[in-house]
């Protein structure tokens, strides 16, 4: 089976957490997902900040990114909830007639672009969960993450709003938990599992103390459940969880040491790649406990 997608990088992955990009490029081709670079792609643009400032600008840049994919003749694959939300919603908005769509279409024509509407936007969770499947993933696992207790964080824009995403039940989704189990790990339940990490909507940059309060509650609940690490599928949640723990220590003297892995990094570990190959040692939070559990010599921070 060969699935081929235009790989949409976004901002946080290439510019802050390149480990996730490395993990994607190593892991995905091996399980049958071919990636083609979407050269010249810009910020999706960030739904929280840019969508709040000007919806016209948001739709314009998003449409350009979709045009690039259409030019390649491929569907878009993203590894980020935020980019997924932007590109999916823009895709839908471009299919309905409106004054905004007319304005944006004119702007695109101005630089020689025209969006016909053939592109589908896919999130890696959907591709892995529904197109590749847990079973196939399991076949590629050579170093199962046994004894690792994982707290799965779905994030918000993967499953909500339900009418737009149409992807698992927002109150009680199971897709990522299944994918984590396929790696041989245990997905632990924790209080308010579906709570927001607090980063989105421009809150992380705009109202940082409120953002950190929300993060703190999540981390406290995860810690209570005695998880070894968190697995997510959104680089922005990833940034919030990783750097946020440093900010909590610096600003509020609250200490946690809960490493955060993107699912692709976790899959990478299970397929035998090392901590440094996946950029995990470049992240703010890493610790000996998890390194040991992963089987010694996997690098510490």
């Amino acid at each position: 089976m060969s699935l081929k997608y235009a790989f949409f990088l976004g901002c946080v992955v290439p510019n802050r957490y390149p480990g996730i990009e490395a993990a994607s490029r190593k892991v995905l081709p091996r399980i049958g997902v071919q990636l083609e670079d979407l050269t010249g792609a810009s910020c999706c643009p960030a739904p929280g900040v840019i969508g709040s400032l000007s919806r016209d600008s948001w739709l314009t840049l998003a449409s350009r990114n979709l045009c690039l994919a259409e030019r390649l003749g491929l569907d878009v694959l993203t590894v980020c909830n935020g980019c997924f939300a932007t590109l999916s919603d823009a895709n839908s908005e471009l299919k309905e007639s409106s004054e905004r769509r007319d304005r944006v279409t004119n702007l695109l024509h101005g630089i020689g672009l025209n969006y016909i509407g053939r592109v589908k936007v896919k999130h890696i969770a959907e591709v892995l969960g529904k197109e590749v499947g847990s079973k196939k993933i399991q076949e590629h696992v050579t170093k199962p993450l046994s004894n690792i207790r994982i707290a799965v964080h779905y994030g918000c824009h993967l499953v909500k709003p339900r009418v737009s995403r149409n992807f698992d039940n927002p109150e009680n989704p199971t897709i990522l938990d299944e994918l984590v189990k396929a790696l041989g790990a245990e997905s632990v339940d924790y209080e308010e599992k579906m709570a927001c990490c607090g980063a989105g909507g421009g809150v992380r940059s705009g109202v940082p103390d409120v953002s950190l309060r929300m993060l703190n509650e999540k981390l406290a609940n995860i810690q209570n459940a005695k998880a070894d690490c968190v697995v997510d599928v959104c680089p922005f949640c990833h940034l919030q969880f990783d750097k946020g723990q440093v900010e909590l220590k610096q600003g509020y003297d609250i200490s946690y040491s809960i490493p955060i892995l993107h699912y692709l990094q976790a899959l990478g570990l299970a397929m035998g790649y090392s901590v440094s190959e996946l950029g995990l040692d470049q992240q703010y939070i890493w610790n000996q406990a998890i390194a040991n559990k992963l089987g010694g010599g996997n690098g510490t921070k």
Partner: protein
Amino acid sequence: MATAKTDLEAPRKIVSRRNDFANEVTKAGGVNINKCLQCGRCTASCPSGKHTAYRTRMIIRRAMAGFREEVLAGDDIWLCTTCYTCYERCPRGIDVVKVIQTLRNMSMRVGGMLPAHRAVALNLYKTGHAVPIDPDNKDKRLKLGLPEVPPTVHSSSIALSEVHELLEQAGFLDVLETALTKQIRVRPPEEGLFL
């Protein structure tokens, strides 16, 4: 203790309300806020509201009561993380997130933008990325065997110029300029005003 007649005769502050504000918002965002039941489920679902005095429902209530300035130049609309839980649970099916984003868009014109967002917006314009690459991360990329700079607008000046052109034509810079030259903050209407 009242000083003679003066305190009791202190001029009452007249607050102006805009009767058409609810319709203005409805028209701008395409979501009919007049349908709101004011049941409060959104407030109770909100993660920001859990940690602050923010009440999602009140934004809609103030909008319906016509407190245009207080809503557009207030702090509350910036506390939403767009998690969509309110929309999921609203019995009237109101896309509250879209309403809040519409209000944020409208607030650009009155100077309601948060100062911290200036940097993000300028980055987007200048580099095509809200979060652009920096020397530290170029290093990280090289260590991982990736090209120093990703194959995005960062690697293509033509692509970047397209982004510039589009943002300029879309009026992004105008929005930014207005938002940056005006900066006002207005307190919520319930706080100690006489009507």
